[in-house]
Structures are given as structure tokens and as C-alpha cells.
């Protein structure tokens, strides 16, 4: 390498950190990007430099975690507030007195009361199964200083989804669907969000279609199974819901096994 070329390379290498951090002036950024296009060696150096910085960060994070590891104490159970005896007994005595009085007045209405209790129980159980109370899957809202257009769109969709603005989230997802490369790389998280957003909008066919895209090898499959079961449940497609829920119940390791049982019971009522 000639002296000039070596000096030029040294100059660009000295700019790499600021370039990676986005701290260069637009002039210098243009200069280094042109050099990167023309010089495969500089490209290689940048690639190694990015890897080197990532190495330092990863090693630093690991070290920090080790420091944290020494600072833990046993995690206490959440302490229920203590009551003093009088505070507990007084309402009980009052309640007993009222209950005794009420007994004489309402003993002939016992049957009606029982039916009301059953109704209240059913209502409580149903309210737990309202579509609005179904917990959404979690998504991290991450932003970088220099997002690509596609990443930016995804962040917007996540933001709308977290805020439960499903129509807006879905409309952004529709624009992302045309990016085959993005879909190929992120089919799991994309289809899960699309499916759940449509489920919440009661667009059951679209929800089922999206969730069915997630195959069993995908890490999002367990979540897809669960929301697909819920989609059929709320679409009142009892047969399909039953099949999906039974699959989850059979899988003892499934993270929603317990809740799937509850929904299955509800189906068989």
C-alpha cells in the first residue's frame, strides 16, 4: 500500500467510531460512505470495527451482570396487610347480626337468592372471558437513532398495538406486508401482531389467516396457538375452538394450559 493510501486509510479508520455513532458532519459522512463504496478493504475494516465494538459491549454487559449477581437478597413474598383483631371481628359481629335479622325476612325467598348467586357467578366467569380482557402479547418498543424506513414503520405499528389502537396498527402492518424480505425475517412477530389486532377488531377470518401463518418451528408458535384458539372461540366456531384448545390442554408444557381448560369448560356448558 502506498504512503498516501496508508494515510488515507488511517484517516478513515480514525473516523470510524464517530461514523458508527452518527456523530460525523454530513460532509464527512458523505466522504466515508463514498470511500466505503469504492474500497472493499475499508468495508472489511468497518465490519471488523463494528464487530469489535459489539464485542466490547457484550463483554461489558456480561461483567455488569456479574456485578449485579452479587447484590441480590432472597426475594420476599408480597406481604398482605395485617389487620388487628378488632377490625376483623367488628364487621363479622355486625354482619352476623344483620344476617340473623335478614334470615327471618328472607327465608321464604331462599330459592330466588340461590338462583341470583348462580347468575352472579356465571356473570363473573363470563366477564373474565370478555374479548377486551384478553391479554395482548408483549412487544418491545425499541428505537434506534437511525432507523430504516421499514424498522420505523414496525416501531409505529408496535406503538399503536401497545396503545391498543388496533386499526392503526393493522393499517401499518398492511403496508409492511409488501416488503417480502421483512416478512420472511419476521413472520412470527408480524403475524402474531396482525392476528391479535384482527381478533380484537373482531375480524375473525383475517385473524385466523394471519395466526395460521406461524408454523410449529417458529418461536411464536405457542402464542399463535393460543390466540388462534381464542379467535375461534370468539368467532363462536365451537368445533375449531375445541380442537385448538384441546391441543393446548394436551400439551402440559404450554404456557396457557390452565386457561385453555377454562375456555374448554365454557365451551361444553
Amino acid at each position, binding site marked *: 500500500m502506498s504512503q498516501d493510501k496508508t494515510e488515507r486509510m488511517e484517516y478513515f479508520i480514525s473516523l470510524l467510531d464517530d461514523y*458508527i*455513532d*452518527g456523530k460525523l458532519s454530513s460532509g464527512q459522512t458523505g466522504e466515508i460512505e463514498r470511500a*466505503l463504496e469504492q474500497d472493499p478493504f475499508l*468495508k*472489511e*475494516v*468497518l*465490519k*471488523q*470495527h*463494528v*464487530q*469489535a*465494538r*459489539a*464485542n*466490547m*459491549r*457484550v*463483554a*461489558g*454487559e*456480561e*461483567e*455488569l*451482570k456479574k*456485578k*449485579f*449477581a452479587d*447484590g*441480590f437478597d*432472597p*426475594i*420476599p*413474598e*408480597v406481604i398482605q396487610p395485617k389487620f388487628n383483631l378488632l377490625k376483623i371481628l367488628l364487621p363479622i359481629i355486625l354482619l352476623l347480626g344483620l344476617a340473623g335479622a335478614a334470615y327471618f325476612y328472607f327465608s321464604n325467598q331462599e330459592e330466588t337468592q340461590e338462583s341470583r348467586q348462580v347468575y352472579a357467578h356465571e356473570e363473573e366467569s363470563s366477564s373474565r372471558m370478555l374479548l377486551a380482557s384478553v391479554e395482548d402479547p*408483549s412487544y*418491545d418498543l*425499541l*428505537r*434506534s*437513532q*437511525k*432507523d*430504516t424506513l421499514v*424498522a420505523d414503520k414496525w416501531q409505529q405499528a408496535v406503538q399503536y398495538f401497545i396503545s391498543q389502537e388496533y386499526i392503526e396498527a393493522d393499517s401499518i402492518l398492511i403496508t409492511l406486508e409488501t416488503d417480502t*424480505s421483512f416478512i420472511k*425475517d419476521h413472520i412470527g412477530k408480524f403475524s402474531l401482531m396482525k392476528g391479535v389486532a384482527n381478533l380484537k377488531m373482531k375480524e375473525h377470518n383475517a385473524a385466523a389467516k394471519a395466526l395460521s401463518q406461524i408454523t410449529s418451528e417458529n*418461536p411464536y408458535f*405457542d*402464542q399463535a396457538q393460543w390466540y388462534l384458539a381464542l379467535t375461534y372461540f370468539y368467532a363462536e366456531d365451537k368445533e375449531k375452538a375445541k380442537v385448538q384448545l384441546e391441543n393446548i390442554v394436551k400439551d402440559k*408444557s*404450554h*404456557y396457557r*394450559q390452565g386457561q385453555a381448560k377454562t375456555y374448554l369448560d365454557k365451551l361444553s356448558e
Partner: protein
Amino acid sequence: MRQEDKFSDEELIKRVRAGGKEFEDISMYMFHEFKGFLPKIKEKLNLPQQQMQDAYSDALVKMIRHVREGSFRGDSKVSSYFYTIFYNTAVDVSRKNASNKNMQTQELLEHNARERDLLVLIDNKDEAAQVISVMSSMGGVCQRILMDWGYYGYSMAEIATRSDLSNAESARSMKYKCLKKLRELLNTKMYNV
């Protein structure tokens, strides 16, 4: 720094981004300050102590990274932001336990967004996915110097003191050599995979 001292969100962010001793101290401060979330999440998810600790440390390291890289823009309180990350991390651990799948629960070995953008720009996407880790092959002094500079953000004068070097100029020279060595190691590893 005493734990009784209270810091505003602006102060926390400022100190995390300042690097060096301030960064190390504020990291430990946040570690103790947010411990109150541990019993709450444990009650919700019923994870064993060790997994709770791992999820807590992962989440805190992740949050610190977001603050330093500017992904966290202060739209919410730092504690709320941490709680969300901690809860999501713990849910991932819980799902991993339930399904016993080889699911990634942490991002420690991934590039950050800026690095990914750059690698995609100069390379193909597949190679942008993971960090090729070679730090353990470095000598102890080099590892210390590079981490103090590249992660903790100490000044050259501080690095000289911490690594027992004569002055900032020696530290700078060592850093240059160590970085070159690291790049060479990476070069060898990248083309021998």
C-alpha cells in the same frame, strides 16, 4: 454515591450516558432502586429466585443499553420503562420454562440497531445477525482497557490509572494496539467459521 440519594430521571439518564465512574455508580444505584419490582413480578409469574435474578439483571442491562443508545427517549418514566422490560423478559423466561423451547430471551449477543444498519449497508443481512465473540481470547490487560474504553466509557487518563499505565498517552497507545489485536482476531474468526 449513597442509596438514600434520590435522582431524577434526567439525572439518571445523564449519568448513564456520561460513562466512566458515574455510569458504574448509577448502574448499581438503579440495580438497588428497582429491586422493589422483584416481589411483584415474582408474585405474578412465580419464577424461581435464580431465574428472577437473571431476568432482572438482563432487563437492567438491556434498559441501560437503550438509554445509552438513545432508544429510550424519555417518553415514560425510567422506572416504568424498566418495569415493562423486566416484565417482558420475565414472561419470556416463563414461556421458555413452559415450552422448553430453545427461545432467545436476551439480546446480549446481538448487534444494536445502528450496528445492524451498518452491517446491512455493507454486507448481507445474514451476517448482521450475531456478534462473533472473541473477547475471551484477548489478554487480561487488553480486555480491561477495551472494556473500560468501549463499554464503560472511561477517559484515557482514568484508564491509565485503572490499568496501572504511566499516563493517558500510554493508555491511548495500548488501546490502539489492543483494538488492532481484537480486529485481527475477529478477522481470523470471521473467515474460519
